[in-house]
């Protein structure tokens, strides 16, 4: 267990032992967010997110991890600090944010629209007709294995399938960055494991950047290259941990000693962070 006891930090990701060298995609600089009721959701949050990285934000509820995700998505302004995008669009003017896909904790589907209609939505809002979008909608549904359910309504689907539809909708714009806000928290364990595997396969195939918010140590270790452990009140970065384990990670990784060792280490760090937050 080479990485078990080393105190890791962000440098480790970029070290020769790290899996890939990353160009930064987005840099959060000293982000603070105070809500109108005076709650300090985030204080001085600085994180670099590498292009193509799988990063998890892990922390107790109230640590501002969802708030951070929303600020990256442009839903809500930071009170202080800046979000700097490093994507030089070819021929484009300046660093604007790339195409973003967002998956909420709830499937957030429109109950009056079919699966097709829900996945079509992002393209429809860009003015694509149903006919023009059909190919891409079916392609996105194919990625999550739901082609056969295009004409079903959300209420006819199981919780896991609704989440897949939500993921297909996030994927249809071919995003460079996928933001996921505890997407599998409400699902049963079997479905969650399955969707974890599917998500990793898609990530390895398409090479997007994923920022994954979770409160599950096990889920974050299984998925991520790097975990940012956050502490609450006020929400801040407590520590960054690299998960040195090769991909593809499959079900046997879940039972491997190295996985358990990482979980133990992350768990200890999370408890430290929560202990610090409580006084």
């Amino acid at each position, binding site marked *: 267990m080479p990485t078990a006891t080393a105190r890791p930090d962000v440098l480790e990701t970029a070290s020769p032992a790290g899996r890939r060298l990353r160009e930064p995609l987005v840099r959060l600089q000293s982000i603070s967010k105070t809500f109108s009721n005076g709650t300090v959701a985030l204080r001085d949050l600085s994180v670099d997110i590498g292009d193509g990285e799988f990063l998890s934000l892990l922390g107790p509820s109230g640590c501002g991890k969802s708030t951070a995700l929303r600020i990256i998505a442009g839903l809500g302004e930071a009170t202080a600090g800046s979000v700097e995008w490093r994507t030089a669009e070819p021929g484009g003017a300046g660093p604007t944010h790339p195409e973003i896909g*967002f998956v909420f904790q709830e499937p957030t589907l*429109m*109950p*009056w629209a079919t699966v097709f209609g829900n996945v079509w939505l992002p393209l429809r*809002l860009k003015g694509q007709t149903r006919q023009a979008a059909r190919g891409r909608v079916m392609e996105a549904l194919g990625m999550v294995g739901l082609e056969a359910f295009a004409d079903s309504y959300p*209420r006819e689907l199981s919780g896991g399938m609704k989440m897949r539809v939500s993921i297909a909708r996030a994927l249809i714009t071919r995003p460079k960055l996928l933001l996921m806000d505890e997407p599998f928290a409400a699902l049963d364990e079997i479905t969650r494991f399955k969707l974890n595997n599917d998500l990793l396969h898609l990530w390895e195939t398409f090479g997007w950047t994923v920022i994954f918010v979770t409160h599950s140590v096990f889920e974050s270790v299984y998925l991520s290259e790097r975990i940012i452990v956050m502490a609450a009140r006020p929400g801040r970065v407590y520590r960054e941990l690299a998960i040195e384990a090769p991909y593809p990670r499959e079900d046997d990784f879940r039972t491997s000693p190295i996985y358990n060792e990482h979980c133990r280490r992350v768990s200890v760090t999370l408890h430290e962070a929560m202990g610090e937050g409580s006084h």
Partner: protein
Amino acid sequence: MTTAETAQAEPRVAEDEDNELPLAPEAESLGGRIARIAVPLGMLALLLTVWQAYVTVFDVPHYILPSPIRIGQTLATDWSMLFAALLVTLRITVLALAIALVGGVAIAIIMAQSRWVELALYPYAVILQVTPIVAIAPLILIYAPTTQSAILICAWIVAFFPVLSNTTQGLRSTDHNLLNLFELYGASRRQTLLFLQLPNALPYFLAGLRIAGGLSLIAAVVGEFAAGTGGRNAGLAFRLLEAQFRLNIPRLFAALVLLSMAGVLIFFATSLLSWLLLRKWHESAVRREN
């Protein structure tokens, strides 16, 4: 991720399909469907028989309580007059309802766009609603150019509020995450309204419509009572009053039967519309299966 994998990993899928595909009413057993029609009809037959027996046995004079058969005969003999009156009343009801729908939805949309407009308009909509229509009717009769238009205005005032308040509620209760999603994808205000807020408000609107349908008939009748129009434009309510003055009690009952049948018809029409629009997705229109 293939379909085969999905089916294998999520056996729940197949189960759900079995459970939920028979959504339509045809899932109901034949016996259940017959009972749904036969029981109320049997009840009606029983009531009418008792009524008829009572009138015959105690020899009740028809100007006090006419027998069902006599009411039926009156309905037949006075049909041309009563049916013409029914059409007049129905025309006002439907017209008032239609204008109330357009106006209610339009004002709800405007109020949902701007907090200021809502602050300015909503209190007056409430005042218009809570003031008894019978009390406003005489004023309207003075100001309106014709009696028919006065009755129309009465019916509109009453039918308009449930549509407005329900639609406003529906437009406001849009899922915040869906609103975030629309914002994330750069949806315009018009797109958010058309693709998100209006569909979301549809069940609320339809509930308002069902209330408004019944209310507009009531208001049309109240308006006619207040106006007391006779002649060619006489509605059912006027015929009803007229029959009372003349102590033509069988005709009064006949008019009443037509009026309540018109109410039932409106209720069924709005319920049917509601079911047609919601049956695919809304919990209210889908049969629960456990």
